[in-house]
């Protein structure tokens, strides 16, 4: 559907470098990255809103690299919705069709379809300034869908919304994708949003793609410390791996050693997700291969969950529920045991 080859875009001091990406038809593709990573630049380059210095962008086997934005067949929705403030809701959503000089009947049909699709029929005559955040987002989506674009580009569409509205609009996006079966490229810095919506995710940082894969791959098998940190894998340890018999590797960091369920050798990183570690006051019988002991050095309350940092050494964080925390009565300075399976340890070169 969309194929990006060796894309290089320069904007002032920032550059998007060596972007190679394929997005399949009907895919809900997520571009995930921190602020300033180049997500919006990439999205706008696909839309033709940034000049491409090198590389090619293909859409449905057409080389659209030098196409004008209005000829590409892609629509963009921005974080703050960018609704035209001098138009009513109806004029906003029909803007693209009016430019195409559609007949009155066609405009009415489109208006009814979009009104029903996004549940905004009752808002059509309102001024955009009177809409709530969620309503504005729906109007922006309706406007973008009105021209039936080949690809819908969403630039942080949920960031400006309160948590409750965000969840509702997230659900709306999921339903919309199922209903229309269209190709969506959605940019976000929120990895939970990416996990929920994306069929595949590309992680971007410092103007370069760091990893492309399914949510499962990105979440559990990051290929670099950057990606691991970004998906909140708090335990990223640099050390030395040694293959042993039985398809496992022993990973050594300082004086501490534990096992990983993959064959690896040499200097590398080990990533262990905090939620994959069991914390207890006594060793867990019958003694699984990875059981470490250490002292609690920090407890961070996140509301329904808590992060507990244990100095083995190295320092390892684990995530527990509030109920578990209350039952166990953990405190700073306490000796505890950390247990995790070799399959929870992901080794990578970085």
């Amino acid at each position: 559907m969309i194929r990006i080859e060796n894309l290089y875009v320069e904007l002032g001091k920032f550059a998007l470098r060596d972007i190679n990406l394929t997005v399949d038809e009907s895919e809900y593709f997520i571009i995930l990255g921190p602020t300033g990573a180049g997500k919006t630049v990439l999205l706008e380059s696909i839309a033709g809103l940034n000049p491409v210095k090198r590389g090619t962008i293909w859409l449905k086997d057409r080389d659209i690299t030098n196409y004008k934005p209005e000829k590409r067949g892609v629509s963009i929705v921005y974080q703050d919705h960018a609704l035209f403030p001098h138009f009513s809701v109806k004029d906003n959503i029909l803007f693209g069709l009016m430019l195409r000089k559609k007949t009155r009947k066609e405009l009415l049909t489109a208006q009814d379809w979009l009104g029903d699709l996004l549940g905004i029929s009752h808002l059509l005559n309102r001024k955009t300034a009177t809409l709530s955040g969620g309503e504005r987002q729906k109007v922006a989506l309706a406007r973008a869908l009105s021209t039936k674009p080949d690809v819908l580009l969403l630039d942080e569409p949920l960031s400006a919304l309160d948590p409750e509205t965000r969840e509702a609009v997230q659900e709306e996006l999921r339903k919309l994708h199922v209903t229309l079966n269209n190709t969506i490229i959605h940019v976000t810095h929120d990895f939970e949003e990416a996990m929920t919506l994306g069929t595949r995710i590309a992680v971007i940082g410092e103007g370069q793609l760091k990893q492309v894969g399914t949510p499962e791959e990105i979440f559990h098998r990051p290929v670099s410390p950057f990606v691991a940190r970004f998906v909140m894998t708090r335990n990223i340890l640099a050390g030395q791996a040694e293959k042993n018999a039985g398809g496992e590797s022993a990973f050594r960091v300082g004086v501490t050693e534990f096992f990983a369920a993959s064959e690896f050798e040499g200097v590398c990183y080990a990533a262990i997700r905090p939620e994959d570690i069991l914390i207890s006051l006594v060793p867990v019988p019958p003694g699984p291969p990875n059981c470490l002991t250490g002292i609690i050095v920090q407890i961070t309350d996140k509301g329904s969950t808590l992060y507990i940092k244990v100095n083995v050494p190295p320092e390892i964080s684990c995530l527990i529920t509030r109920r578990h925390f209350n039952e166990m009565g953990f405190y700073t300075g306490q000796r505890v045991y950390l247990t995790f399976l070799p399959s929870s340890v992901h080794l990578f070169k970085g």
Partner: protein
Amino acid sequence: MFIKRLISNKMNLIFGLLGLIILLFIAIPLGKMILGSNPGILLKTFLDPQVINAICLTLYAALIATIFGCLLGVPLAYLLSRFNFRGKRLLEGLIDVPIVVPHTAAGIALLFVFGRNFIIGRAFGNLGIQFVDSIAGIVIAMLFVSVPFLVDSVKEGFNKVDVRLEKVARSLGASPWQAFTRISLPLAWPSIVAGNIMMWARGISEFGAVIILAYYPMTAPTLIYQRFETLGLSYSQPIAALLIIVCVIAFIILRALAYRGDKHDQD
């Protein structure tokens, strides 16, 4: 309510008193000018064809200058708002130079370029357009000294229009022209109108550059000066009063439009 809040705070009270001095400094001379004229002389002046002609010529020349300023200044303001490039600050500074140079000096500079001894002046002369002692000269002088007000105001107006609105319009199928005329221009309209009125009002009051380039035909400020020099204060004052009334009306319209523009932005 406002007075109550003002006197409840020592700092606000001091600021209020200092502000009052500047308000009186502006209001007293203007009020004295309008109210202090002898009614008989004022009426006689209002009926003087030379005065009426001078005021009409001033308004007309300022309008022509504003139309040219708008046609040439709005595109420039848009480009300055939308693009960052090396030397942009220098260019913006250059546009504002006519505000800071003495206007008689501006007149002399214009005389050099549009006079009969320079290539541009000669080229226009061959087309039958003379700038010395002509309406064209008055227009050029007004344009030169007042166009920075228009460019600055319009640029601010375009700065307030989110560039992403244009990007969305483009992705929906609008050409650059369509995005400009349907999105940016209507949204910047209050600032464009305000800039035009500001330029027109500033053109009306121009004296220094006009007197160098075109003493004749006489504009209202030139006539005020001539009457003051030849007949004295009491004969120049009524013309000045009339001109001030015209400028104040233009200024009130400008403020009203700017207020409407701000309200629109807040919506």
